[in-house]
């Protein structure tokens, strides 16, 4: 029994506004920030070498750019699958509304894609020129196109390349931050949703982007190298893991801080956030995202960074942690995007979400969209040599690094 005039609103009788029963942003919108996050994170790994000159990251510096490009190529696909009228998608660039966070998408994405692509072309230019000479047929045409049919490898032109690469990598960092910070703001800018409307949202998105990007690079590096039976540079993996630990500690702290401040401030909508996390999201948030996929990886990262273990164990454990953190970010995106929409704006109840297998935005589409970047990465590997040691040209003429 409530004392008179208490809990007039917070009595949850599960009334959901009639238009809130349907979850409008489903899995595709959870996938979209996941993919752009991987792009931004992978790019930052590359920049750590190209801009901040962290030498031990050299083995993955080129690969991470291609990794970012493969995912960037697919970043718009979930959005196109989601749009009610995908054929009108160019309206977003033709008639952008300056007050809309989403309107920036076309320009930010386009500009970032251009910077990334140009950086790849300039970093790989000597290699591409070299490969152009060796290839024939279709591959020769591709290499001619990618090098703009220039074979100039004079010291003067390489010096210019270095300057251009430094410039692109430098502006690439703020652009990667803007790309993903803006994605966070798409959610953070919705005041009608109490779980989204926090200035921490872009920060959390950006940090989790770094986490997913670095994890992706570590996992892909170890897997591809092991699969091909090639040498794994453990120094590189260790440096990546340390950065991963740093990013993840801050990311997880902010994620918890957001929940804590909701709880401590006990604001108007807290009764909804609290019951959302204790009810519909209990398993996916507390058990999966926080328990299994955050606390456990933190412990494992502690072991990796602070204790001495054998090289083989290190590689295995680093792969496991990376995989777990890639999943953690999936759960985080899910809990933010889908979970946030489960709260009805009636402040009195929760709706439900059941993903479909064969829907336009269904599970199958999600699987295809997550496989596609890997296929693109495979195709890219046929054009661009991923690893420095495969690239004899690089060993002769150092470009892009110190």
């Amino acid at each position, binding site marked *: 029994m*409530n004392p008179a005039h208490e809990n007039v*609103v917070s009595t949850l009788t599960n*009334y959901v506004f009639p238009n809130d029963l349907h979850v409008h942003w489903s899995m595709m919108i959870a996938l979209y920030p996941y993919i752009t996050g991987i792009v931004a994170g992978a790019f930052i790994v590359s920049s750590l070498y190209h801009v901040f000159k962290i030498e031990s990251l050299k083995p993955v510096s080129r690969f991470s750019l291609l990794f970012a490009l493969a995912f960037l190529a697919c970043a718009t696909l979930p959005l196109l699958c989601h*749009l009610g009228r995908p054929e009108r998608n160019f309206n977003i660039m033709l008639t952008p509304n300056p007050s809309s966070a989403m309107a920036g998408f076309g320009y930010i994405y386009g500009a970032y894609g251009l910077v990334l692509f140009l950086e790849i072309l300039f970093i790989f230019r000597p290699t591409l020129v070299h490969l152009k000479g060796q290839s024939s047929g279709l591959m020769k045409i591709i290499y001619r196109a990618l090098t703009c049919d220039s074979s100039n490898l004079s010291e003067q032109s390489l010096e210019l390349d270095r300057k251009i690469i430094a410039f692109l990598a430098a502006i690439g960092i703020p652009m990667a931050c803007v790309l993903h910070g803006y994605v966070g703001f798409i959610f953070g800018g919705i*005041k009608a949703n109490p779980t989204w409307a926090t200035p921490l949202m872009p920060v959390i998105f950006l940090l989790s982007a770094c986490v997913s990007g670095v994890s992706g690079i570590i996992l892909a590096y170890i897997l591809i190298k092991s699969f091909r039976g090639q040498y794994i540079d453990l120094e590189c993996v260790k440096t990546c893991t340390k950065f991963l630990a740093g990013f993840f500690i801050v990311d997880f702290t902010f994620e918890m801080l957001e929940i804590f401040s909701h709880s401590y401030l006990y604001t*108007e909508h807290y009764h909804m956030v609290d019951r959302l996390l204790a009810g519909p999201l209990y398993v996916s948030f507390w058990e999966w995202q926080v328990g299994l996929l955050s606390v456990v990886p933190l412990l494992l990262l502690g072991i990796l960074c602070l204790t001495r273990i054998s090289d083989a164990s290190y590689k295995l454990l680093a792969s496991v942690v990376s995989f777990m953190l890639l999943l953690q970010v999936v759960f985080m995106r899910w809990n933010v995007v889908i979970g946030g929409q489960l709260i009805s704006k*009636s402040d009195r109840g929760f709706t439900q979400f059941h993903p479909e297998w064969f829907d336009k935005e269904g599970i199958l589409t999600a699987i295809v969209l997550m496989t596609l970047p890997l296929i693109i990465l495979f195709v890219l590997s046929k054009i661009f040599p991923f690893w420095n040691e495969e690239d004899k040209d690089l060993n002769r003429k150092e470009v892009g690094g110190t």
Partner: protein
Amino acid sequence: MSRTDKTPNAVSGGVPDMATELNGDRRAFIKKVLKGAIGGSLLLVIPLEAGVGEKQENDFDKIPEQIPGIRGQEYDMSSRQFAFVVDITRCIGCGSCCVADKREYNVPDGNYRTWVERYVKDFDDNVYVDSPKGGVEGYQEPRPELKGKIRDTFFVPKLCNMCKKPSCVQVCPVGATFKSPDGFILVDSKRCVGCGYCIQACPYSARFLHPVTRTAEKCTWCYHRVRKGLLPVCVHVCPTKARKFGDMNDKKSEVYKILRSHDVITVLKKDMGNAPSLYYKGVRREVV
């Protein structure tokens, strides 16, 4: 004229001759009364479109003007500031507004441009809210599952709040949702990409994605009718005058008088900062 307006006229067709008839043939009089009654009740049964006579179908101009000062004049958008008032104390939860709205726009099932909520409060101050099918079938039965003694119950019609600081307009990436100078928030369905951002941003959940056009839709306060000098269809059909609509720049309008009166007037989710043009008279703090 609506069908409810027609019925009394039809039935009372013979009333002026009543005295003569009474003095004359009583049997003939009874026959005429019966004919009148049957004829009148037939008019009740035969469905007519709300506000439109058979020969005047879709001909707005032949319907008497309902909002003064719009017909036959050049429409000056910037000189108008429309407001909507919902009087909670008058709503009886009949659902006529929802029926009229659904028919006016052919709203697909499961989506709502307007809906009516039923609030039930028991003696323990528990508040139970429901809106089955958006209240389109009216609230004819009490909620059977509520066993406690009911202290109070009331109905709250909901529709687009036509905010002065609309979140939906702010977030629409392509400018398909816009605010007109006369205070309407409208959607250009030819421009909308169907991203659903406005649906997320609306604090009142007044929007939905139309399953056929796959673009955002919402209540327009019947802009097409207002421009013809007619009231929104839900206002027109409301039998208890719980919904009121008018121009705040017209000092003779009912909404102007209500909003300048001593009545308890509020807007929903005031702290959201959207400054709605939809006002509620006599609303209770339980209402979200």
